[in-house]
């Protein structure tokens, strides 16, 4: 009886300790050793320290590009659950373009700046450091959109060998399927008034918008899952790392946000073939690199209909659509990603990296 009581008290103490820890501290995320090799304004290009000798590594470097409104540390969440760590261990010369945190002085930055100024320069540096004239590119979420634009405009001439898109929001035809399209409908949402008030799109508003797509799951569900598993260190550690990333959102530069809403969500210009970036028409037929289009089947932020039609629009001869179970983030950072998405993506890239 006394032993039972002691066990119960110990368990309760652990639970309280865990609760205090996850609600008052930040989990260490983004821990894979890396080195900053290039900077422009707030953007930084990192090279992850290889763990395999040069002769055992893949020859073609791989560049990762994440979204503009969240930190790229989701790609390197925690040891044992990190896509970056996985790829470095598999012998890739891995680079990450981190956008940094935009300030009021960056409110003018638009998609043209990112696609035609930042990405090409970072790639030039990566090619210089790696010594390879060709490279592979992996984009996730808005990073996938930027990568698609880059691949269509510059990829062919700058040595892009293969492009991997994860949950890419590119097609806005079926607006009723896209909750964010309703939220940003011009009848209810005045994008210019928001930017007039804030300059950049505030991180809090982006976070609120994303959470309101599934309010109960996002505002309550996560916490009940934590409370149910407070005595399970694995779940607590995973929850802590994910929560640290989720609450650390960053603002989106006003110029890019406006283009995203007006040209993409409302105009669907990329799919209609009417999108121009700094006067250059974006023609998806010019995207000729090998293409892997990863679609998350349960994605409520970028539903599958937003990525699927890309396959018929691009000029790539070598292309594959990969549908995987999971949501927008879970597909790459969820507990099942290391056995589901990562090996599939890695084996596809491996065949195009030597």
């Amino acid at each position, binding site marked *: 009886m006394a032993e039972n009581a002691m066990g119960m008290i110990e368990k309760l103490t652990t639970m309280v300790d865990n609760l205090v820890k996850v609600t008052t501290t930040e989990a260490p995320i983004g*821990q894979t050793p890396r*080195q900053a090799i*290039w*900077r*422009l304004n707030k953007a930084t290009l990192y090279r992850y320290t290889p763990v395999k000798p040069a002769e055992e590594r893949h020859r073609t470097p791989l560049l990762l590009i994440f979204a503009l409104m969240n930190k790229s540390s989701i790609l390197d969440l925690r040891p044992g659950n990190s896509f970056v760590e996985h790829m470095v261990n598999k012998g890739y010369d891995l680079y990450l373009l981190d956008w940094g945190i935009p300030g009021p002085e960056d409110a003018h930055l638009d998609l043209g700046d990112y696609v035609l100024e930042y990405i090409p320069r970072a790639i030039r540096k990566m090619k*210089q450091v790696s010594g390879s004239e060709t490279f592979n590119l992996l984009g996730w979420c808005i990073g996938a959109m930027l990568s698609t634009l880059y691949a269509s405009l510059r990829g062919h001439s700058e040595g892009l060998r293969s492009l991997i898109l994860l949950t890419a929001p590119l097609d806005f035809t079926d607006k009723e399927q896209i909750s964010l399209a309703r*939220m940003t409908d011009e009848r209810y949402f005045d994008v210019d008034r928001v930017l007039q008030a804030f300059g950049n799109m505030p991180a809090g508003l982006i976070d609120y918008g994303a959470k309101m797509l599934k*309010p*109960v799951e996002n505002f309550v569900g996560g916490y009940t899952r934590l409370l149910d598993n407070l005595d399970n260190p694995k779940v607590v550690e995973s929850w802590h790392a994910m929560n640290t*990333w989720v609450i650390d959102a960053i603002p989106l530069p006003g110029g890019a946000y406006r283009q995203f809403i007006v040209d993409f969500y409302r105009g669907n210009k990329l799919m209609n073939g009417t999108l121009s970036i700094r006067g250059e028409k974006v023609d998806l037929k010019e995207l000729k690199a090998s293409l892997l289009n990863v679609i998350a089947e349960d994605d409520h932020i970028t539903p599958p209909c937003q990525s699927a039609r890309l396959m018929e629009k691009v000029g790539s001869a070598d292309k594959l659509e990969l549908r995987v179970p999971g949501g927008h983030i879970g597909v790459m950072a969820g507990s099942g990603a290391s056995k589901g998405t990562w090996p599939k993506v890695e084996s596809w890239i491996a065949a195009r990296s030597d």
Partner: protein
Amino acid sequence: MSEKDKGFDVLKLVRDARDGSMDAWAKLTLNLTSSHEYQRLQGFFVKPVLLAIALVRKATDSTMSGVLGNLNMPSRDEVLGISQRLTHIEMALDDLAAGLDQLRRTASPSANRPQRPSGSSGRGSDVAGENRAPISAKEA
């Protein structure tokens, strides 16, 4: 021990009831927040707030510009403009450095080896120094 042997579990009952009610709420709120009516209502309430924020911001900017001008100090717009100019200078230097590197490679075949980041090339936008220690996202 089988489930039956565990006997009556009050906590499980409470959790099941909670999960059931959360599922019902989730469906209800999802239908609500994804409806056009909800978006219309949200837009109706947000518009005056945004207008007020924009007006306050405009008034603050104008007052601050006046104060800073009287103190013979640069205004907010001027400081932001300097930041943008610096970025353009960074870009020009980056292009210049890349051009020089290309020239160096053309001139000296031995320089055709890949540039390893541990050696600094002295360029403004290059960042030297190995981060062996773990780097947190904050530091990044």
